[in-house]
């Protein structure tokens, strides 16, 4: 996979990161190295191996449909950067 400075810019924008020009250049070369290192795995023939869907060999960990008390709103809103009117306050979202 080819890693260019545009790849870095795209990934950074998806992650809401703003990078300086020199950081972009450094990360391009870092990511190139990482990807080519991992790409070594492609040399193996995995066509007959079932994909591992999950790292833990367990299934169906489920809970019954029972309602328990929710948290006190003040406790929940303690985590808000800003709050008021019983809600989290975020910068104006325009649709």
């Amino acid at each position: 996979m080819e890693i260019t400075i545009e790849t870095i810019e795209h990934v950074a924008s998806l992650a809401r990161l703003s990078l300086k020009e020199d950081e972009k250049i450094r990360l391009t070369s870092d990511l190139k190295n990482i990807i080519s290192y991992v790409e070594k795995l492609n040399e193996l023939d995995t066509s007959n191996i079932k994909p591992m869907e999950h790292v833990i060999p367990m299934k169906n960990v489920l809970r019954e449909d029972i309602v328990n008390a929710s948290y006190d709103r003040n406790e929940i809103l303690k985590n808000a950067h800003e709050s008021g009117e019983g809600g989290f306050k975020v910068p104006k979202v325009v649709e």
Partner: protein
Amino acid sequence: MDYEVVIGLEVHAELATRSKIYCSCTTEFGGEPNTHCCPICTGMPGVLPVLNKKVVEYAVKAGLATNCNIASFSKQDRKNYFYPDLPKAFQTSQYDLPLCFGGAIEIDVNGVKKSIGLTRIHIEEDAGKLIHDAWADGTLVDYNRCGVPLIEIVSEPDLRSADEVKAYFEKLKSILEYIEVSDCKMQEGSLRADVNLSVRKRGQREFGTRTEMKNLNSIKAIVRAVEAETKRQIEELEYGGTIIQETRRWDDNKGESYAMRSKEEAHDYRYFPEPDLLPIVVGEEWLSQIKAEIPELPDQRKSRYVEKFELPEYDAAVLTSSKIIADYFEAAAAVNSNVKAISNWIMGDLMRAINEKEIEFSNIPVAPEDLAGLIGLIDKGTITGKAAKKVFDIMFETGKKPMDVVKEEGLEAVNDEAAILLAVKEAISNNPKSVEDYKAGKKQAIGFLVGQIMKATKGKAQPQTVNELLVKELEK
């Protein structure tokens, strides 16, 4: 130029579980903002979500009722995007291994039957609600709805008109109501649709470029949006333009849509397996347990009404289109075997009264047994069909029993021949012109005389007796 429209629907239905999908907070609609929340549904670090068993069962039920295959192995994935209604910055959904896939439901548009394919049904969590008018300089976020379980039902691009879209959506809604996995209240957002639509020249094999329309919260809005978007795309192409693949938001007040975001800035969701949740394996035993809970579905119920009650296909289709109506009909049919009359009353006077008063079918003030009782009174000749309409209106206003209304209003039919004969004689002597016409061979003049007699008896005289006596008197 002749164009064909190609439409696929993505329908989101909130599941009717008591608790949320990954925590035990209530799913109840409304409530003060952020009072149905806990660290799990507000996305605090370090919490461990656990899947609600009912969510799997309801989704599988929906899959079975729409002829889907049920995956024996299914998993959940993270769909990553930043938006304040999603505190974790990802939505837990399903990507490549959905719970149900490859289904179909049959629709009927003006007697033409068609099978619409279902690509898949997967489970996911709902997002919170953004309230824009709380402050001028900010948006209020309420996470009560966050983590309410959803199923997303994705159709194949098999729909070809607004009528087909309407029929498909109504059928789907009806099935979900029958199997009781969602309350399907569109006004509360329990059922929502996104429409994917493209147009192509008739005969062309490839699909045109499609747009996705969001924010469709009523059946009327869906139909209007489909019609408007079809027209917009055809006009664009006719004037030499091109369709841009984009997401559009429907404004039902204005009756038009506008672009929200184009493909270039569309989300790149970077799905990956959810490490905190384990695979879902629906084995034979669990599957057959869920299968056993599937009730009679709309189409089966419709066939039963045609066979058992010998109702016309049309009546059966209308009555079974909604489970509440069908249940109402059967409750009435259990106490009165005149099923055709019950059907007529439900489709006629009852539906009219509901539409006029704008009430939900579930809140009808007339109990089904009372409607059956009213019909019984007509059949026994206690009241006339004409008086019954009046009795019904009063029952609908007050919720009173039919016989009580009849007594209070003095609407018992007059079967007293002497009394009716008196009215007949009076009508004859008061209307010599009509009598003359009748005798001169204009048999239809009798209608006017009958009307006069019914008026004089306040609609309470049995029409049959009136007719007999009137003819007898006239022929004298």
